[in-house]
């Protein structure tokens, strides 16, 4: 039989639209408007999952986002999602869901043995048992995680699209219940820009499930009118199915909108979810309250649910979850549920912990034939996969002891209500302070910190008329604060059939006596934390609330204790006989509900994850088989393999082409900064370690930059283009850093200096041509006189290259005769192709960064960031020649005379030659005096650069070695990861063309 628990009529579902879905492999039918939970209950499915630790049978506890039990694996394949709350999943055609944490099935679960063995699994069991010996924890952990898992993540790539949106408004209202709606109405009518957020598919909040009136008219119709009016306002934006996740400083709110999650078809145009980042001048919190469970023996069986949830299933979805129902309550409000169940044909009994029950309620129970047990408690429950029987006994409130006859009742559904907890999560996240209310027996908002307003049940007020007036008035006040002309005030009256007034709730604590052996009083359903665990934690000294939480795991998990926190704290207060305020509470942290990584990432995935920078010649590189490497955000050709060549073959060919004839490198990624202004020379004198005042116009100079600690931070060649005009180059990765560094000192230290820095990295394409034939080759394409006499080394000329206005620098990073041709970027590829075409007769060879590295290492030229690491001075690099002795001051100078930078045993930059003439040492290898079988052994330093040198025919390496410059020619050892030990000899850093003649030919 299908939908056997559905009432004949009623509810806010569309009975004309049948929806087919699958749960645990079995087919069911529901209606449009159902949640997975309501549809399962309609089909009399109560057992939906197994608990986290003891694998106990669990059903549906709530009807909203606070659900701890009914969490399922939703969907299949790449879209499968774990830990989804069945109470929030809107039913759609073809939905497939399955229980979690059970094997082989939810009905026959092997893990439920844990329940039988539970006396050996108290709180802290895993810590106590598996932490010793520490080395075995990783082994145990694998199996423990597997046994205590929640759902599983998809292994395939998520095919869905996620978006992010930034939003700014006057007022954000979290919660679309009656309070939120009225605040929105008042502020909207006054002209504020309002964002109204609600996590449900329908606005109206919990009142939609209850009987009430507003201004003496039918409440539900009234709500509809308000919603219609809000939708008609252009200044009000409404987000349904949107959960406010985090509330941060300066009224910054994040929210997750489920855009198409509830649809059976993938949208071509809409994202699956949208992540909102909202900044508003004021925030109104109107999130309402969560009903609090009662703690009694075996209060976790399927069929036991919150009274308000039962009411919602009945009123909103037309589902009667049981026929023989027991209401267990400590307040008046829950009686509405009992009366409604009675009205729909269920047989009712009520167990009330109080003795002074309102006489009108007593009378009504009598009239309706509802058996009422006052001053009583449920002391045990039975039923393996669903509750079927309970025992009730009188409880003495003062002594907290049970007495009298024990009555047995048959039942198939228990509705419980322990009062209401305001949903203070966001308020607390926003740093709002809470206080414990001894009348409501829960935490309520106390002190506001940010520019915020808290209204309705969320504020700990449960009087409808008060809430209507307060909410509307606060909407007007907010508008007034923001200088809007406010709408008229309205006097509101509201009436609930039975209200949850402050006087009618009483705290309930489980009785001291008659705790049935083997029964469990659950505090936290999701984490399987029982009252006994809380007792144990106190006994073992985990008395601070933060310790109790971590030791027992109460309040953790995907529900973050929405139903359990207050009961845990109340029990601690009871144990220590201290007010709850003194016990305190743990910190609420975002997110309010679990949220997907997809939404947090938004569009920043795949190629949009990080910007990619390409030179103007990039396409040519691609077309010519370049292998790329990432240098910062840049894509640089690594090498250009020809057919069947591997990296070694290609790099060897490229290196030899440069050394023997002509090579070309795309050096466009070098940072380039244009410096102008009358104080530029003075400024460079402070920034670089060497002197700049005597540099002639048209000349280039290599410079090192140090930070104030005296450590090398960047290097490059800077050229004087005019009296007050320089062209600075930096390392590829350091360009932005150097630019910021220059600006920092100009803006914060030397405000009187007139210097203007402009990044021109992307304005110039740089073609570096290098090799003995470079002059001959370039002369054929330019009107600049390249002769040795007229264009010496370290000079700069302007002229036409391939008829394009160009800047040519005679500098060299290979040691060969080289020219760096800078052309405006839009001509970059044109000139590159002209060069390739014209250079055929010289066997012009494009080369990549690997060849560049080999060639510079053969010459002992450093790469900042590879050979240096931020702890290296110019002197450590044997670059004393570039540190001015004459200049009074420059950045880093003072630090060169600090005791640490003057130590004689500092690591120095040296060359290394392996004695076997064939091993290319791994970069980063440690260098020791003598390799021992086991550490420790005396460390001397490490290898910074290491390559095979094709022109020399053997490997070369650069290294930092303690006092290395004084040990040239001495033997060291390098133990490798594979156990081999390589012998090497400390050498000079220049391996090729030591005299430096090549670049001067």
């Amino acid at each position, binding site marked *: 039989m299908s939908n056997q628990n559905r009432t004949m009529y009623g509810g806010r579902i569309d009975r004309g639209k049948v929806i087919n879905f699958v749960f645990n492999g079995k087919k069911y039918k529901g209606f449009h408007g159902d949640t997975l939970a309501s549809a399962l209950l309609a089909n009399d499915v109560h057992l939906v999952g197994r608990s986290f630790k003891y694998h106990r049978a669990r059903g549906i506890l709530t009807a909203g986002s606070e659900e701890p039990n009914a969490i399922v694996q939703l969907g299949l394949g790449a879209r499968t999602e774990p830990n989804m709350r069945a109470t929030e999943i809107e039913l759609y055609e073809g939905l497939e869901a399955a229980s979690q944490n059970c094997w082989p099935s939810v009905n026959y679960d092997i893990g439920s043995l844990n329940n039988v063995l539970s006396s050996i699994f108290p709180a802290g069991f895993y810590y106590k048992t598996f932490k010793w010996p520490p080395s075995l924890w990783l082994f145990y952990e694998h199996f423990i995680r597997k046994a205590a898992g929640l759902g599983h993540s998809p292994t395939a790539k998520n095919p869905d699209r996620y978006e992010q949106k930034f939003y700014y408004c006057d007022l954000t209202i979290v919660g679309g219940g009656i309070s939120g709606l009225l605040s929105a109405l008042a502020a909207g009518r006054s002209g504020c820009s309002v964002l109204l957020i609600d996590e449900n598919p329908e606005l109206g909040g919990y009142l939609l499930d209850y009987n009430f009136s507003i201004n003496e008219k039918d409440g539900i119709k009234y709500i509809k009118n308000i919603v219609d009016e809000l939708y008609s306002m252009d200044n009000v934006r409404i987000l349904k199915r949107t959960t406010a996740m985090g509330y*941060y*400083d*300066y009224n*910054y709110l994040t929210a997750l909108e489920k855009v198409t999650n509830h649809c059976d078809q993938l949208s071509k145009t809409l994202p699956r979810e949208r992540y909102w980042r909202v*900044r508003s001048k004021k925030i109104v919190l109107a999130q309402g309250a969560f009903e609090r469970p009662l703690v009694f023996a075996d209060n976790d069986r399927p069929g036991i649910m919150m009274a308000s949830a039962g009411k919602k299933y009945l009123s909103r979805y037309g589902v009667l979850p049981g026929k023989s129902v027991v209401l267990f309550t400590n307040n008046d409000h829950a009686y509405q549920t009992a009366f409604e169940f009675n009205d729909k044909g269920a047989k009712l009994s009520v167990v009330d912990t109080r003795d002074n029950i309102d006489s009108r309620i007593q009378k009504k129970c009598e009239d309706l034939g509802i058996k009422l047990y006052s001053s009583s408690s449920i002391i045990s429950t039975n039923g393996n996969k669903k509750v079927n029987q309970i025992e009730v006994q009188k409880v003495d409130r003062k002594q907290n002891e049970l007495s009298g006859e024990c009555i047995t009742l048959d039942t198939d559904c228990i509705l419980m209500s322990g009062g209401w907890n305001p949903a203070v999560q966001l308020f607390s996240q926003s740093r709002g302070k809470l206080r414990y209310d001894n009348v409501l027996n829960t935490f309520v908002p106390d002190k506001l*910190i940010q520019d915020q307003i808290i209204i309705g049940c969320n504020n700990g007020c449960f009087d409808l008329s008060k809430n209507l007036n307060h909410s509307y008035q606060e909407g007007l006040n907010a508008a007034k604060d923001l200088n809007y002309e406010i709408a008229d005030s309205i006097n509101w009256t509201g009436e609930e059939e039975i209200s949850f007034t402050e006087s009618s709730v009483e705290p309930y604590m489980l009785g001291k006596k008659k705790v049935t052996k083997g029964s469990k009083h659950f505090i936290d359903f999701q984490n399987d934390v029982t009252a006994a665990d809380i007792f144990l934690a106190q006994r073992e000294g985990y008395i601070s609330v933060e310790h109790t939480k971590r030791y027992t795991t109460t309040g953790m998990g995907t529900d973050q204790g929405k139903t359990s926190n207050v009961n845990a704290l109340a029990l601690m207060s009871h144990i220590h006989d201290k007010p709850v305020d003194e016990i305190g509470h743990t910190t609420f942290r975002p997110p309010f509900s679990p949220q997907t990584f997809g939404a947090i990432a938004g569009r920043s995935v795949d190629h949009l994850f990080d910007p990619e920078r390409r030179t103007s010649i990039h396409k040519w590189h691609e077309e010519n088989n370049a292998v790329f490497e990432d240098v910062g955000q840049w894509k640089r050709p690594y090498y250009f393999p020809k057919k069947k060549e591997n990296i070694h073959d290609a790099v060897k060919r490229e290196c030899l082409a440069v050394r023997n004839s002509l090579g070309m490198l795309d050096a466009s990624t070098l940072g380039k900064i244009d410096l102008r202004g009358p104080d530029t020379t003075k400024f460079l004198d402070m920034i670089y370690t060497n002197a700049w005042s005597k540099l002639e116009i048209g000349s280039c100079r290599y410079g090192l930059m140090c930070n*104030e*600690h005296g450590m090398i931070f960047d290097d490059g060649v800077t050229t004087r283009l005019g009296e007050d005009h320089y062209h600075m180059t930096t390392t590829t990765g350091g360009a932005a850093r150097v630019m*910021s560094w220059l*600006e*920092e000192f100009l*803006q*914060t*230290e030397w*405000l009187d200096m007139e210097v203007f820095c402009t990044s021109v990295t992307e304005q110039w394409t740089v073609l570096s041509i290098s090799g003995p034939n470079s002059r001959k080759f370039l002369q054929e394409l330019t009107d600049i006189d390249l002769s040795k006499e007229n264009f010496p080394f370290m000079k700069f000329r302007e002229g036409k290259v391939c008829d394009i206005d160009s800047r040519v620098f005679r500098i060299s990073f290979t040691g060969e005769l080289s020219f760096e041709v800078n052309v405006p970027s839009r001509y970059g590829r044109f000139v590159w192709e002209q060069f390739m075409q014209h250079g055929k007769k010289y066997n012009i060879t494009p080369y990549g960064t690997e060849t560049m590295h080999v060639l510079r290492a053969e010459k002992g030229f450093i790469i900042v960031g590879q050979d240096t690491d931020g702890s290296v001075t110019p002197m450590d690099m044997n670059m004393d020649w570039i540190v001015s002795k004459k200049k*009074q*001051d420059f950045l880093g*100078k*003072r*630090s060169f*005379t*600090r*005791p640490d930078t003057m130590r004689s045993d500092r690591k120095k930059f040296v060359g290394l030659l392996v004695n076997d003439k064939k091993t290319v040492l791994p970069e980063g290898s440690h260098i020791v005096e003598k390799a021992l079988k086991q550490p420790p052994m005396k460390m001397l330093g490490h290898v910074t650069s290491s390559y095979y040198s094709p022109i020399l025919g053997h490997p070369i390496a650069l290294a930092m070695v303690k006092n290395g410059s004084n040990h040239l020619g001495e033997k060291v050892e390098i133990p490798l990861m594979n156990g081999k030990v390589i012998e090497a000899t400390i050498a000079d850093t220049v391996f090729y063309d030591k005299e430096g003649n090549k670049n001067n030919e």
Partner: protein
Amino acid sequence: MFVINCPYCGERDQTEFSCHGEAHIARPDNPAEVSDEEWGEYLFFRNNPKGIHFERWTHDHGCRRWFNVMRDTVSDKIIKTYKMGDQKPGVTDV
């Protein structure tokens, strides 16, 4: 996440800015003449107060200007932002 009032651009989200630590640490006029200890003070020692803190920020994804921020590290409230070179505000000025 803060809203920061850039003295040049106005109020913007914190994501547009970066913080560069304590403000009003002057570079010694003549570093050669200061002792190792004084130089070390300038390089390494910073205040970490519970309460009012002065710090340097840049509007990286905006005007790229440096400026100073006076912030209460307890409430994270930004009390004042002001240009480089402006007088350091006293607690009584605000």
